[in-house]
């Protein structure tokens, strides 16, 4: 009998194992949930990918403050590595098991995120119009939320809604090993002008030390400086007079002969790269971020460009070994013979608005999730949160740690007017040639000859692809419009009017005409409009008439 039992048990062994595992998993989940969520407790989960030093601790600290005010609420973090965050959040949202609060952007392409926002996030527009209750007792008391944030408060144009609240800002700077700098050059602080900086790099190199760490990751940050000298190109390529030169305008300007690779400001950008790149370690373009950081940590290099998000980690790395200094990228002075005329002003530094969060529609307690988000965005808590992380607060009046003063971005200045990303292949070709030039394998003339011809040849295809992508966007917008119209027709009173007006305001008009204009212009079917900053004789006549007594 016993044998029969054992034989039968063997037959059903897999089923027994599966059943036991299932039972064990169910009990564990149940126990975990009871522990996490005692009866009457509201659990708010916050999902993000910021594994940098300080972030989890900062959320933890702010969460504990919030829990003191709301003893029935528990905040739980889901900190997911950035390599897998996009897949993770996608499946969580689709499966209906996403955290209550999710970090904005999802580390995915904007159209994908837009789609997820539309389906799975709660619009926050209403909260933007109301004061943040947690600003009571501060100078922001009674001020609508939108006016209490420094950035990231624009509505998503395609949805006509505010979908997220951003908590921080970061910027890019040059970090340096102060001890090594002193030892090699005798300087306490590096020169802020380009000429002086290059001269100093020469001395460092002569002493057998790498002046600047480069890698595929770090070198790109220098574009903030390199690209700024292309600003004068707006006078050749801003066909729609919006102050920018887009990739379609750059292509049209090439086709019409307004711009080419020999445009002095474009050439100046490469002269500038050529001036600095000899001071990066050989073969830097092929190195990874980690390899670059290692050189800096081993004190083999003096300077390294990186973002505020790495500041705390670097400080930790240098602790007890060397002192770290921070500076802006060196800029050519106005009287710099080679570059001064192209850098028309200070460099505008894009304030990178980060650490934004949206509230998921599957949240069981969306009001509590939003309340916690408002708590983190309040002046007092936003300051506390960012001081612990080491980032710049995004709330007005929330002061950053005094040591971060050097990271405040400059919001008045020149910006790039060169964009070769009209298609995937022009982008790739540009990057390949740019890297070869940066490491000294080709000259600018070679780059200009190769890329100029390629851009003009492939740009037309790129313009068509860009147009197709825009068409897809129009269909997506039409989907949204149709939904607004349907909801408007099903509603009545003020709600119906509001929905109808949002439907009307999303009617594409200018972009349809502007797209057709750029395509016809690039194809030579339209006369080329002036893009110059010189006032034409007709304009001067009009001004003269206005000034005559």
């Amino acid at each position, binding site marked *: 009998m016993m044998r029969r039992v054992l034989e039968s048990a063997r037959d059903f062994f897999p089923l027994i194992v599966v059943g036991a595992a299932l039972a064990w998993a169910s009990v564990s989940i149940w126990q975990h949930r009871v522990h996490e969520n005692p009866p009457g407790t509201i659990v708010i989960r916050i999902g993000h990918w910021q594994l940098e030093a300080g972030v989890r601790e900062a959320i933890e600290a702010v969460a504990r403050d919030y829990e003191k005010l709301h003893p029935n609420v528990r905040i739980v973090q889901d900190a997911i590595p950035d390599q897998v965050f996009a897949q993770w959040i996608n499946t969580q949202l689709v499966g209906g098991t996403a955290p209550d609060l999710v970090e904005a952007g999802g580390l995915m392409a904007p159209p994908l995120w837009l789609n997820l926002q539309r389906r799975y996030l709660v619009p926050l527009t*209403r909260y933007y119009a109301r004061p943040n209750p947690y600003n009571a007792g501060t100078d922001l008391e009674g001020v609508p939320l939108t006016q209490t944030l420094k950035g990231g408060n624009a509505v998503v144009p395609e949805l006509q809604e505010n979908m997220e609240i951003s908590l921080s800002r970061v910027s890019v700077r040059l970090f340096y090993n102060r001890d090594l700098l002193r030892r090699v050059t005798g300087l306490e602080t590096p020169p802020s002008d380009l000429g002086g900086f290059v001269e100093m790099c020469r001395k460092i190199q002569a002493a057998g030390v790498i002046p600047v760490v480069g890698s595929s990751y770090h070198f790109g940050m220098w574009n903030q400086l390199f690209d700024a000298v292309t600003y004068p190109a707006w006078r050749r390529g801003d066909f729609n007079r919006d102050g920018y030169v887009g990739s379609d305008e750059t292509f049209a300007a090439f086709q019409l002969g307004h711009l080419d690779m020999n445009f002095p400001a474009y050439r100046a950008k490469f002269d500038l790269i050529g001036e600095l790149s000899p001071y990066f370690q050989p073969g830097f373009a092929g190195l990874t971020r980690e390899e670059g950081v290692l050189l800096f940590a081993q004190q083999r290099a003096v300077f390294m460009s990186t973002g505020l998000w790495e500041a705390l980690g670097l400080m930790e790395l240098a602790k007890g070994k060397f002192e770290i200094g921070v500076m802006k990228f060196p800029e050519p002075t106005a009287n710099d013979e080679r570059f001064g005329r192209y850098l028309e002003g200070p460099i505008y530094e894009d304030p990178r608005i980060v650490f934004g969060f949206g509230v998921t529609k599957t949240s069981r307690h969306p009001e509590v999730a939003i309340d916690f988000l408002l708590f983190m965005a309040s002046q007092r808590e936003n300051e506390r949160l960012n001081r612990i992380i080491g980032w710049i607060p995004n709330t007005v009046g929330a002061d950053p740690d005094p040591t971060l003063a050097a990271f405040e971005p400059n919001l008045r200045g020149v910006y790039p007017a060169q964009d070769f990303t009209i298609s995937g292949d022009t982008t790739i070709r540009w990057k390949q040639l740019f890297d070869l030039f940066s490491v000294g394998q080709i000259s600018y003339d070679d780059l200009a000859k190769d890329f100029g011809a390629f851009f003009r040849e492939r740009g037309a295809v790129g313009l068509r692809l860009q147009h197709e992508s825009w068409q897809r966007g129009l269909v997506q917008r039409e989907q949204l419009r149709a*939904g607004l119209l349907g*909801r408007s027709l099903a509603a009545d009173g003020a709600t119906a009017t509001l929905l109808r007006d949002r439907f009307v305001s999303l009617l594409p008009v200018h972009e349809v005409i502007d797209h057709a204009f750029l395509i016809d212009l690039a194809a030579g079917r339209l006369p080329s409009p002036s893009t110059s*900053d010189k006032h034409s004789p007709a304009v001067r006549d009009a001004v*003269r008439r206005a000034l005559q007594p």
Partner: protein
Amino acid sequence: MKISGVFVPLLQVLRARWFHVVIGAAIALHGAACGRKPTAGETSHDLNSAWEQYGYGAYDAALAQFRALAAQTPEADSRHHQALFGEATVWAWRRPGQDPARAERLYRRIMELAPGSDLAGWSALAMARMAWLVPVGQTPDQARVLELLRSAATTFRGQLPGDEALVTEQVIRVSEFDSAEARAVTAALETFLSERPGSPYRAAACGVLSAAARVLDRPRDRLRWEMAAMAEREKMARAIWELDRQGPFVFNDPGALFKIAMIAEFEVGDFAVARDFYTRFLEANPTEKRRFFAEQALERMKSTEDEIRRELVGLVPPGQ
């Protein structure tokens, strides 16, 4: 009791087919319990819920709800027409799975059941927009699109769908960048503006008129229409704001302020207007990327004015 006395019946149970079904169901229930709870709206068949599903991109759920509502309501009932409209909208705009032929049949059915109604107008317009916004890789049949738009604009003149049809037709025509077309567009839209003082499409119409003025090389008109478009947009935004103080705050659009300033400066030579709009741009958007650009523009205009003033008092010969 012998141990086999317990195990043998237990193993028989484990071997039974019904037990496997029970285990399967338990696993499925466990999976479902870990997943999302259905919301109340998912079982409701009202229009709002169906549109909500459509908004989430849950097209099958939306379709099922629209169909259920259509089946529950008599053909003469406006809710029946709205349900058909919802179903047609799903077939028109879902991607993938679009079925334009089916959408068109439903839109035409609405026009039969409720001729002359707003919903019939929206249906006529939707057919035109569907013909215009074709999938990537296909070219719209321009003649058919214009015909559908004209038909909708004429049949539903004085109604909102007619307004949108008219404006969209002019958008397509002005994009030809042909003088004769631009003149016709101007005439059509000026008539529209005089006939429809309260239409929410006035801002869009002014924008198209600005584009037509550009084709006709009439910079003053272009400036006038851009300013009118902005004024209409702000009027609408204010009306929305009055209705809903918690809606999006959309005044002082930096793009519109900047564009008007640039047209006034470079195309018209009306530096007073240019200065006013650059200043408004700077005041409303102090951290905008184009701040330095706008400051440069103010300096550039001052420099030109100073130069012309010197010419006017005879200190400098003109043009030097």
